[in-house]
């Protein structure tokens, strides 16, 4: 009997070791940054690593870390899930406090996932509103704070065109009338168009920008699953960038196959639309690298059928060889699971010359690989409207040395003095990075 019991324990022990230990050898993230990332073979775990940073927040006086020549200060603290920032022409800073809708449980796995995600996100109840911060004395720091627009539905993207302020809730683009200098809008928003929202709403952040001529809006609509596990009908209109006519609200899919596109921005030199995209999970710690890319009209970028061109994802059935054949390879990989959610081109001159002309990317950070990746803001140099050279870390220190999260960067913007603003959703702060 004793023999059989210990045999049983041994068998379970070996099985557990097998689950935990066997994994591919790690890939240096640097090999996955740039136009030609190294793509290791697919590795599907029996028990995928879940390594979520426990949130500890910022202690008194603690700030992120910046290189010499820059300084960082808190523009605002004690917020409720600040997810994105937008700067109005008069210099007022809008901060979108937002949280996603409650995730449904369709499978036993989702019990576990919801619990894990809860750990990774701020425990403070999201504001689901937009705050306004005004610097009245020109020192770069705000003296006035107001609630700009209240009672929104998981808002994320904001863009102003003329006197029309557009807010992308998770389920609709709303238009609000705005006059320069206004500190609060109480007029209810008018719906320009519906966006794919609940009931699942897996990727819920809807990024928003306007074409340089102001006639069109572009909204990032993320997929409704990691990799079609909620069925293809749930993906209608998703994993794409919508082009919305500002006058009529009519829309079409401008580009597709982009799993979770965020940080939509027009590159200032070439006037081409760019996005940062969160790629798929659970193919291993080093697959699939997230990326930033110029977005070509009518192009298909692979999701769900393939990644980086014609690399087939075996989890997707039925396959679509016709679409895979025309899948476009993205421009610039950012390495795996960094979760880029914000991007801004540095059009200003407020920061040192080393940061002129390129793009800052806010990396929310990984949760499904043993060694943390992301949790920082990086700078990607651009030459002639194209990424050129290695990305470099700009704002770090969001993780403690023992992998706990003080904060996680999300949306980015440049303020009227050319300083970089960073929404930090679990640190409940907005950071301002300026020249020293």
């Amino acid at each position: 009997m004793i023999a059989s019991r210990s045999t049983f324990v041994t068998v379970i022990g070996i099985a557990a070791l097998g689950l935990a230990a066997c994994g591919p050898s790690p890939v240096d993230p640097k090999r996955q940054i740039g136009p030609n990332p190294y793509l290791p073979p697919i590795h599907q775990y029996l028990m995928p690593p879940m390594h979520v940073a426990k949130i500890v927040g910022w202690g008194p006086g603690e700030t992120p870390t910046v290189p010499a020549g820059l300084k960082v200060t808190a523009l605002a603290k004690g917020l409720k899930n600040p997810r994105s920032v937008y700067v109005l022409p008069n210099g007022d800073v809008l901060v979108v406090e937002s949280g996603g809708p409650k995730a449904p449980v369709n499978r036993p796995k989702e019990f576990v996932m919801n619990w894990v995600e809860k750990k990774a996100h701020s425990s403070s109840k999201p504001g689901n509103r937009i705050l306004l911060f005004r610097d009245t004395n020109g020192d770069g720091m705000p003296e006035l704070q107001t609630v700009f627009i209240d009672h929104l539905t998981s808002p994320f993207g904001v863009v102003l065109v003329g006197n029309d302020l557009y807010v992308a809730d998770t389920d609709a683009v709303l238009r609000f009338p705005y006059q320069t200098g206004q500190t609060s809008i109480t007029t209810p928003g008018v719906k320009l168009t519906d966006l794919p929202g609940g009931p699942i709403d897996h990727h819920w952040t809807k990024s928003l920008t306007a074409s340089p001529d102001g006639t069109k809006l572009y909204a990032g609509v993320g997929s409704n699953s990691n990799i079609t596990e909620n069925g293809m009908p749930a993906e209608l209109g998703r994993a794409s960038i919508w082009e919305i006519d500002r006058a009529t609200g009519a829309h079409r899919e401008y580009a597709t196959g982009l799993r979770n596109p965020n940080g939509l921005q027009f590159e200032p030199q070439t006037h081409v639309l760019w996005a940062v995209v969160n790629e798929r999970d659970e193919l291993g710690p080093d697959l699939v690298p997230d990326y930033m890319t110029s977005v070509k009209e009518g192009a298909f970028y692979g999701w769900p059928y393939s990644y980086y061109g014609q690399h087939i994802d075996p989890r997707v059935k039925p396959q679509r060889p016709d679409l895979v054949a025309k899948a476009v390879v993205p421009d610039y990989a950012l390495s795996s699971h960094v979760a880029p959610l914000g991007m801004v081109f540095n059009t200003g001159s407020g920061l040192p010359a080393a940061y002129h002309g390129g793009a800052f990317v806010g990396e929310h950070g990984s949760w499904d690989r043993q060694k943390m990746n992301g949790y920082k803001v990086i700078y990607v140099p651009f030459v002639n409207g194209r990424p050129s050279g290695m990305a470099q870390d700009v704002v770090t220190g969001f993780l403690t040395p023992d992998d706990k999260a003080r904060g996680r960067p999300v949306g980015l913007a440049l303020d009227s003095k050319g300083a970089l603003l960073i929404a930090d959703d679990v640190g409940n702060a907005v950071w301002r990075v300026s020249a020293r």
Partner: protein
Amino acid sequence: MAGDNPRSTASLAGRPIHAMLAPIPIVCFAGTLVTDLVYWKTATIMWADVSAWLLTVGLIVSILVVLAGIIDFFGDRRVRALRSAWIHGLGNGVALILAIANAFVHSRDAYTSVVPTGLILSALVVLILLVTGWIGSGLVFRHGVGVRPETRS
């Protein structure tokens, strides 16, 4: 007469708990194989979801079934004296380990949560259960484990 049969120690009002609950995981794991096969053929995600739920329920009830089985096994020397009781227990132990691994495979997303590994594991579990279930029924119906005939006057 009654005293001759091996006793079921984990029993409720004279009914063995192990035999009462064992059908639940058997049906769940057999059902998992059926819905896996349907998903393999249709790629309709609902069937993969049903498989995952069946597996989970089967595993949760299995905890009680195993506990009752272990109590019965160690509760009466006459049960342990049966060679088939050992085979039944160890075989089900293997099936359970495979079913746990299968639950992890089924927690993957979309097609590879079932095809091919999940489907193979589901089939192996059912094959093992056919054998161990056959032996288990022999323990009751041939060896009378837990059977207490009423004394007739």
